[in-house]
């Protein structure tokens, strides 16, 4: 009987755990507290944080419950991540939630979304210089797009072994946008520039909002066919929203579907982030490069806005360039916050949504381009 107790105990997590698992459990608890206590992206960090706890409960080989054990429940749920199913479904909900009104009213602001995607490619170069192979470098670079589903989608295709660190880095920095962006924005702009008021956008007809997703889908998919799954769902979701006759479907897309997929995505991505995968020098570099990616994207967006002002009759507030980092709607809110620090009556949120949502399109194009190059 004593031997039975001993054997049983030898197979418990208490016997199998070492400092790495404990460290990862602490990281998981940290993410959960960031979400619940600090309200930093709780819809993402709470599932991811709990998933980290799930993935770092030590189990003995052969038990068949780990996320990497074929046939386990977690493995079946993880299928949607590694095959790239979940990210497009999230995009369906994003499309059904997104109002492209301000982007349609002032299309020139889309260029700020394009400029911010330079952060992806600059980080790609940095990752190559640090010794990552091109596929890994692409997966790391896409963190700069500040788009979680796109990051997971591309990494699942190019470097699935990096899904955990890339997703954690992407979502962590998305949650930290209010911390990362303001110092860069203030450093690169003058007070006079931050006080610029945007002119009111024109009225956008309902027909334009219906035609836009169809035209945008065709153009972006013809340009970057590799991103077809992402653009399909994004613009289909938007069409459901704007058509006016498919409100039930749009409501399902932006509530039940996106919430269900977010739960499964967050939980399984977190569970895939196990100690032996995450606690490596590579992960540290990925985190460092992720921070660089966000910073560079913010800086390039702001600087490009200042460059555009050299040619525009009606100047744009250069803070809007930071909203090209497609952490929707957080980076737009940061623009609003920084703008109102100078002028409490300067409401930039509506205008910042234009580069914000065009950044989503830009990062998906960038993902398609990188995937095409890596084939």
């Amino acid at each position, binding site marked *: 009987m004593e031997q039975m107790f001993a054997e049983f105990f030898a197979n418990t997590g208490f016997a199998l755990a070492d400092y790495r698992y404990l460290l990862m459990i602490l990281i998981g608890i940290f993410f959960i507290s960031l979400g619940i206590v600090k309200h930093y992206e709780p819809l993402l960090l709470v599932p991811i944080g709990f998933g980290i706890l799930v993935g770092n409960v030590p189990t003995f080989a052969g038990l068949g419950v780990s996320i990497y054990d074929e046939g386990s429940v977690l493995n079946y749920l993880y299928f949607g991540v590694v095959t790239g199913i979940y990210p497009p479904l999230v995009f369906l909900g994003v499309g059904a939630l997104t109002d492209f009104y301000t982007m349609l009213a002032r299309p020139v602001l*889309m260029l700020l979304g394009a400029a911010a995607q330079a952060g992806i490619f600059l980080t790609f170069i940095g990752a190559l210089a640090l010794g990552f192979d091109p596929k890994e470098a692409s997966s790391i670079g896409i963190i700069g797009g500040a788009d979680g589903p796109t990051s997971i989608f591309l990494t699942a295709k190019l470097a699935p072994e990096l899904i955990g660190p890339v997703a954690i880095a992407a979502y962590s920095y998305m949650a930290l946008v209010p911390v990362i962006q303001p110092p860069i924005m203030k450093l690169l702009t003058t007070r006079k520039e931050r006080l610029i008021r945007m002119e009111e956008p024109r009225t956008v007809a309902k027909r334009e909002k219906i035609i836009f997703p169809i035209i945008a889908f065709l153009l972006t998919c013809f340009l970057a066919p590799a991103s077809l799954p992402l653009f399909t769902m994004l613009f289909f979701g938007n069409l459901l929203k704007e058509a006016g006759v498919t409100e039930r479907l749009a409501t399902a897309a932006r509530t039940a579907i996106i919430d269900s997929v977010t739960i499964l995505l967050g939980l399984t991505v977190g569970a895939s982030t196990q100690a032996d995968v995450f606690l490596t020098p590579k992960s540290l570099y990925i985190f460092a490069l992720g921070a660089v990616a966000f910073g560079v994207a913010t800086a390039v967006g702001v600087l490009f806005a200042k460059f555009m002002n050299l040619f525009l009759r009606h100047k744009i507030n250069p803070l809007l360039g930071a909203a090209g980092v497609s952490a929707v709607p957080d980076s737009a809110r940061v623009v609003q916050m920084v703008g109102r620090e100078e002028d409490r009556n300067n409401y930039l949120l509506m205008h910042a949504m234009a580069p914000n949502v065009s950044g989503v399109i830009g990062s998906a*194009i960038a993902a398609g*381009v990188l995937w095409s190059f890596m084939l």
Partner: protein
Amino acid sequence: MPFDFEAISTHNGWAIAFVGVTIVFTGLICLSVIISQLHKLVIFWESKGKALLTLRLKKRQPALLSGLPPLVQETARHFRTLIPIIGQPFALEDFRSLAAQRGIEVPEYNINRLIQEGFLVENREGNFIWVDEKRG
């Protein structure tokens, strides 16, 4: 992992980055140009629809006229000859008096009929004008 710039060139990193940024910019510039013209397309679409409707209405007006009873047509022709004499706009009482002077029978009834058919339209000042193509 030391920083190695050679690795960038080895993997065509500079070219990929340049081409990638160019493609992203090109795509969004094209999309923004199309979007900037979209409202003109919508306005043209809607105004074309209105123009088509107006054209259809104008084509139907002769049919409307020919659809009127012959007596009304004849009455309208008689009263129309008075317009160059009285000038526009005119007071209805003056028009009635002129009609009576010119021998038009029961001018009150006929003027009322012409108002109902839309040949005589009242303006803001309470005077009337003659409308050839409009029906009430």
